[in-house]
């Protein structure tokens, strides 16, 4: 299975935001609300990861509620690829 690195997922996250005229900050600790990264954006990012890897992610996996920062998103998607 192809797996994306944290850096690659970060690039995709940057694309999701750039398409809306927003910028992904360098600091992974930035709150998602400050970035304007919403549930629609998170879903789009997940689909982009799926498209890149050609594998479906297991969306039923636990952990979604802990996502509050940019780093949480990246960690979660890295982890989700391994489940």
């Amino acid at each position, binding site marked *: 299975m192809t797996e994306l690195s944290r850096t690659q997922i970060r690039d995709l996250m940057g694309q999701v935001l750039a398409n809306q005229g927003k910028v992904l900050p360098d600091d992974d600790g930035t709150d998602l609300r400050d970035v304007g990264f919403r*549930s629609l954006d998170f*879903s789009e990012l997940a689909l982009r990861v799926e498209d890149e890897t050609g594998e479906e992610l297991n969306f039923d996996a636990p952990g979604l509620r802990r996502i509050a920062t940019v780093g949480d998103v990246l960690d979660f998607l890295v982890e989700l690829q391994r489940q």
Partner: protein
Amino acid sequence: MSTAPARLGTSWLAGAGNRVVVGGTSTTWRDLPELDLPPAPLAVLAHDARYALAAARHHAVHGGELLLSTPGRVDEAMRAELREAGFTVTDLGADAGSVGTSGGAGAAGAVTPAGFRPVEHDRLWLLTSGSTGRPKRVGHTLASLTTVRGEQPARTWLCPYAPGTYAWWQVVTLSLTQPGQDLVVVEPEQLDDWPALAATHGVDAASGTPTFWRRTLHRDPAGLARVPLRQLTLGGEPVDQAILDRLREVFPTARISWIYASSEVGAAIVVHDGRAGFPAEWLDRAAPGRPTLGVRDGELVITSPHHGTGLAGPVHTGDRAQLVGDRVLITGRLDSDEINVGGSKVSAGGVRDVLTAHPWVAWARVTGRRAPLLGHMVVAEVVLTTAPQPDAPTEPTAADEAALVRWCAERLPDYAVPRRIRVLTEIPVKETLKSDV
């Protein structure tokens, strides 16, 4: 040449002298091969358009009980189902050696029915397109399929439809029953080059699905413009304003019509004013001999004198209908049109219309895709125009996804914007000329 005996007077064969171009050869209904067919009930699987037409004429002359289809629409399970239902299933034109024209053309490989039953004389069976599941048999007669009866201006019609479909019978019955209605048949392998065939044979009227027209505008706009069309008809799929407008640009003086018709309800709506949808004032208006149209809980409901057999009263079509201003728009199938994005309902047809209104977009399909948090997200596939419209800002590039997302974001609520848009190189099309958008 064989001369067909008249069975029901001459009305079903009033067009016997009309020109029929099939396989690139010009003939007439009268001069098509006389078929030597097994007894009814009979399911004819025509491998060749010539024999499909000959089977239709055979039925007009001799009656009997006939189901006509292409082999591609009848799999092994359907063959078995037809045998169980009392049909002899026969392939026609599969092997050139088995088909003669002197003493009558024979049927190859006829499979006898599981049991015998009385013949429903004059019955024609159609298979539904199966776009919403397994094809079903719907009973008609030549009379119920012949919906154009008044005197018509002389026309040469293109017939791109698969034999045995409702749309095919519409064009075929028109040519069979009306003098002056010639027919130019497009074989499947000719589908991409039909404008050249049509121009050669003087086609001035053509009927096709929106996918058919979009494919032609995409592949060969210059060839299409050379066809001297005076009548263009669209049907079989939702008809949006963008495709009507693009055809109007190519044919500014032709009559452009869209028709809502199906095996179940027959030809129920015909609109000639060049606008998508039909006038809201047509709703719930009863007139003798005409269908009554209604919208119930967002679904188009039709009571029609052209219903298939066994269907009576209001028929729930399964198609979504929306009142927008003074028009009723038919946007797609209810069971596939609605996408639930985190509890918000999105009409796939509505999003598709926004995409196809973009000057770069030649075709679009909109679906729901499973996604975290929201359950589903709106995604799309598009085919971009090879020749951008005059108002297109720039030539489309691989970066167009973002531009199309922005186009949608300016016109749709957040949750309805397709976030993933895949660019295809060709407009997909099935034998039914639909792409199941």
